[in-house]
């Protein structure tokens, strides 16, 4: 230990601050021995280990002294005794040493901290520099990156390819000697060339714009000129109308109709085109006049295939048909079906009969067909009206014949016109709750399948797809349908006349058919009445016809009663709407000495067969309209033969015969079932068996 406890009283200790021992001059104390005492310096000379050992020993010493003092005090030494004091003094000295050691320790600590701090500062500075540099490096790298990525606008310009450029550009621009080596120069040259070309093209563009403007102006002027001609043309057309009338070339009317027709829905348009084409084609034999009615405007235009005939034969029908379409239009507004927009097209078939065979008695009757197009349901329907030239009020039983509801029934087999042919309508009906279309047929017309075909609408029964109207479908059906319509009208009118005669008990037989029957026919037709389907079904002698499936509820039923003497023959007649294509069917029941029918009596069955089966003999000349009356006459003849050849007498006696034999027969019975001779042989006039 360098410090001597004795020195501390006298010397002033000058402690130095900081790290370096400095000498501080003390003012006015020149003679004193200034001892510069720098503890820091001293610190460096001391060894920490030693200091530590010293500290430990000093502590021990102090502890020992305290223990001695304790012992002394315990052993009863009094206060302030020499040993205690000595030990106390020694303890204090040790205590001072401890303080010094403590100070040393603190100073060492401080020194170490200072050093660390300094080092740290240096490191921090360096670190900061490093950070700065790094940041700068990064920054520079980014800048370099940016520079490298820089796309100059020139690269967005599409330039012609290098080869083309060298080919096209003139030498002063392309400068191949320079540009072939230096890509930068090459690009510059290419840009130059591009600029030049674009300038040139811009010039061209401007000039063509100018020319276009000029041409447009020219067109405008010409258009105005043409427009100014229009009023003049109209005036000429008006002036030419009387000329057209005079020459019977109704261009005006045709044009007007074509205009209106353009607004028709497609199926009606197809129908109109086909009907007018057919009307023009068929010429003298049948005349088709077509009227177009639009429900709201009542515009009516007509074309006709044969103007002379139409004028000569048809009364002016516009008025009646106007009312027709008016009332139709009103009706449509009130119906409960989902909004149906109705178009009306009227086609009239005029029976122009100049050269037809004289037996065809229908002359100048008109069959009016009103075609409607129901837009929502996409079907065509038809209503019919007959205006006959002859008076039709004669026959009571003929009431059903020309009934507009059933006149066109079964034009083609099983085409009843009660249900809509478009399968998609089923879904529409279900939505609105309509069960069947048949209830609305009276208002809206009959949706026959042939009407759809005429309008080019084809509904296949498999799928609900509906194709657009086809005019080829309409064309192929038009002729056959028109023929059928004409035939139907003819047949019905002929039947009408025949019925009025039948009701007066006269069977009208025309001259050409007289050879089928003998001159004298005694049995006569007593009654000719109409029956309903329910009444027909009740009859006992017609069950075989019903079982064979030859009767439908669309057929017409009649009852004929033929009488001779006490014998009464009842014949139930089934008339198919397609008469005379389908032969009427007779079923017989004879009331004479008991009731017999075709089921019980083979001869009556043979009579039925004679009347029903031999259509080719009985139908007469070509349209075959005599079929029914010939069948009736043959029935009367057969009854004559039956009654006259009947030999059995009920009660066994051979009394006078009721019906004397007048017909000439070779044999009255033939074959296992002993049939009578019902076949009439013409010139010879006798009856034989088939």
């Amino acid at each position, binding site marked *: 230990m360098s410090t001597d406890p004795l020195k501390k009283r006298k010397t002033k200790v000058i402690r130095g601050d900081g790290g370096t021992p400095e000498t501080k001059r003390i003012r006015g104390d020149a003679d004193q021995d200034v001892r510069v005492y720098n503890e820091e310096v001293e610190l460096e000379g001391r060894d920490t280990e030693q200091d530590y050992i010293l500290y430990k020993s000093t502590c021990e010493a102090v502890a020992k002294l305290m223990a001695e003092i304790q012992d002394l005090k315990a052993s009863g030494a009094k206060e302030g005794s020499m040993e205690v004091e000595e030990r106390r003094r020694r303890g204090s000295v040790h205590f001072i040493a401890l303080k010094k050691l403590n100070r040393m320790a603190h100073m060492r600590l401080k020194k170490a901290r200072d050093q660390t701090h300094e080092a740290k500062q240096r490191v921090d500075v360096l670190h900061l520099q490093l950070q700065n540099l790094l940041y700068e490096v990064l920054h520079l790298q980014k800048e370099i990156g940016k520079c490298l990525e820089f796309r100059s606008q020139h690269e967005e310009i599409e330039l012609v390819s290098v080869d083309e450029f060298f080919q096209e550009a003139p030498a002063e621009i392309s400068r191949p000697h320079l540009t072939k080596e230096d890509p930068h120069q090459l690009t510059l040259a290419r840009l130059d060339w591009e600029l030049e070309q674009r300038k040139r093209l811009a010039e061209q563009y401007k000039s063509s714009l100018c020319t276009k403007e000029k041409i447009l102006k020219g067109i405008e002027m010409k258009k105005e000129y043409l427009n100014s001609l229009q009023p003049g043309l109209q005036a000429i057309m008006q002036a030419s109308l009387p000329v057209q009338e005079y020459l019977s070339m109704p261009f005006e009317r045709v044009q007007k109709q074509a205009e209106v027709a353009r607004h028709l829905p497609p199926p009606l348009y197809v129908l109109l085109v086909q009907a007018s084409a057919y009307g023009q084609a068929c010429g003298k034999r049948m005349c088709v006049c077509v009227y177009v009615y639009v429900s709201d405007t009542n515009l009516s235009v007509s074309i006709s295939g044969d103007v002379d005939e139409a004028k000569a034969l048809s009364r002016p029908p516009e008025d009646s048909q106007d009312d027709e379409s008016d009332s139709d239009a009103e009706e449509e507004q009130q119906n409960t079906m989902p909004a149906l927009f109705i178009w009306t097209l009227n086609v009239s078939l005029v029976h122009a009969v100049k050269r037809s065979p004289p037996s065809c008695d229908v002359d100048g009757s008109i069959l009016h067909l009103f075609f409607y197009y129901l837009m929502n349901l996409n079907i065509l329907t038809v209503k019919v009206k007959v205006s006959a030239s002859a008076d039709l009020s004669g026959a009571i039983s003929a009431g059903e014949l020309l009934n507009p509801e059933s006149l066109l029934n079964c034009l083609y087999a099983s085409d009843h016109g009660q249900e809509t042919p478009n399968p998609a309508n089923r879904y529409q009906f279900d939505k609105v709750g309509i069960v069947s279309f048949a209830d609305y047929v009276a208002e809206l017309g009959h949706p026959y399948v042939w009407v759809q075909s005429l309008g080019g609408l084809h509904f296949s029964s498999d799928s609900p797809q509906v194709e657009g109207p086809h005019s080829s479908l309409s064309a192929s059906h038009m002729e056959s349908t028109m023929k059928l319509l004409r035939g139907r009208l003819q047949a019905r009118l002929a039947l009408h006349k025949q019925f009025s005669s039948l009701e007066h008990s006269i069977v009208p037989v025309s001259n050409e058919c007289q050879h089928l029957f003998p001159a004298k026919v005694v049995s006569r037709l007593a009654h000719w009445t109409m029956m309903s389907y329910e009444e027909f079904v009740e009859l006992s002698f017609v069950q*075989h*016809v019903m079982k*064979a*499936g*030859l009767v439908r509820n669309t057929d017409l039923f009649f009852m004929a009663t033929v009488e001779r003497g006490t014998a009464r023959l009842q014949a139930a007649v089934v008339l198919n709407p397609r008469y005379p294509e389908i*032969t009427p*069917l007779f079923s017989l029941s004879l009331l004479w000495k008991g009731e017999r029918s075709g*089921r*019980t009596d*083979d001869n009556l*069955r043979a009579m*039925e*067969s004679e009347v*029903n*089966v031999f259509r080719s003999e009985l139908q007469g000349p070509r349209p075959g309209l005599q079929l029914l009356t010939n069948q009736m006459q043959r029935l009367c003849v057969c009854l004559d033969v039956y009654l006259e050849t009947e*030999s*059995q*007498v*009920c009660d*066994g006696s051979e009394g006078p015969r009721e019906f004397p034999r007048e017909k000439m027969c*070779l*044999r009255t*019975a*033939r*074959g*296992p*079932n*002993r049939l009578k001779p019902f076949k009439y042989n013409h010139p010879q006039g006798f009856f*034989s*068996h*088939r």
Partner: protein
Amino acid sequence: MGPVELLHMSVFSQTFSPCGRFLAAGNNYGEIAVFSLSAALSPDATGMSQKPILTFAAHEGPVFSLISTDTHLLSAGNGEISAWSWAELTKRSTKALWTRRPNYKTSLEIPEINAMIVNSKDNSLIVGGGDNNIHIMDMETGTFKSVLQGHKDYIHCLSFREREGELLSGGEDGAVRIWGELIAHQCLQKSLLVSVTYLGECTRPQFGKWIGCLTTDSDWMLCGGGPALSLWHLRSMSPTSVFSLAGCQREAVFYQDLILTVGEGPYVSHCVPGGTVKAQIPSSSPSLNTLTLNLNSNEHRVMTTAGSSDQIDVFTNFSYRAFSLSF
């Protein structure tokens, strides 16, 4: 054939093929239809197997009679007889082998042929028809050997007594004539007139006196038609029983110990020789013209009936109608 023609069709004759597998039927339009019985009776028969395998126009007039020999089908039309080979028919070839006409005197109307029988003893064909005579044709040469005259009106039916070799014929005049032996010798030896009208039990004047059906099994004879169907003992020439059937009978056969008969009325009558009508089995036609039994075949032993409709009823068990073939 439209539905109206079918409605007015009558089947007049039927016969089975020699093998028993086919049925030929003739109708009033002159057509013959051949049905395959084996197909119709097989377990997997369909609707198509009840239709004919072949239909062809054989004659101009109705085909009133059909018979089968061992190889041929003979059909009678308007005064002519045609022969067809069964083998060819089953192969659907419709060419007639030959057509012959008996010698008729009248020329204005051609008489029909109502009945044909084959006499196997001397291989001859016996026909009777509308000209009131019976013609006998030799099958080998095809010539008409002899004519048996005697009936006053046309002949309805013929029957042959095998044992005695006698021919029975019934006609519209109400007489049953028995033509005796030696008919092969072309001369009439014995003809016994059985005049039914004298015997009160059988006569039915409201129907007439014509004899429609005739059949015999050498001791007994059945005859009916206008008069009621009655069973006669031939040796004593007297009726033993009369059957009370409502309509006129057109065909009757002996089968085992039953008598089967058809006629007016839509049923087949089963009668016992004692005179009672045992059963009446309903059929589909309003009246029946012909009844045949297929005795040629063991597995297809059926009875078929046909009449005034286009249906031919087939009875597999004779007590009820099994199904119908149709033209």
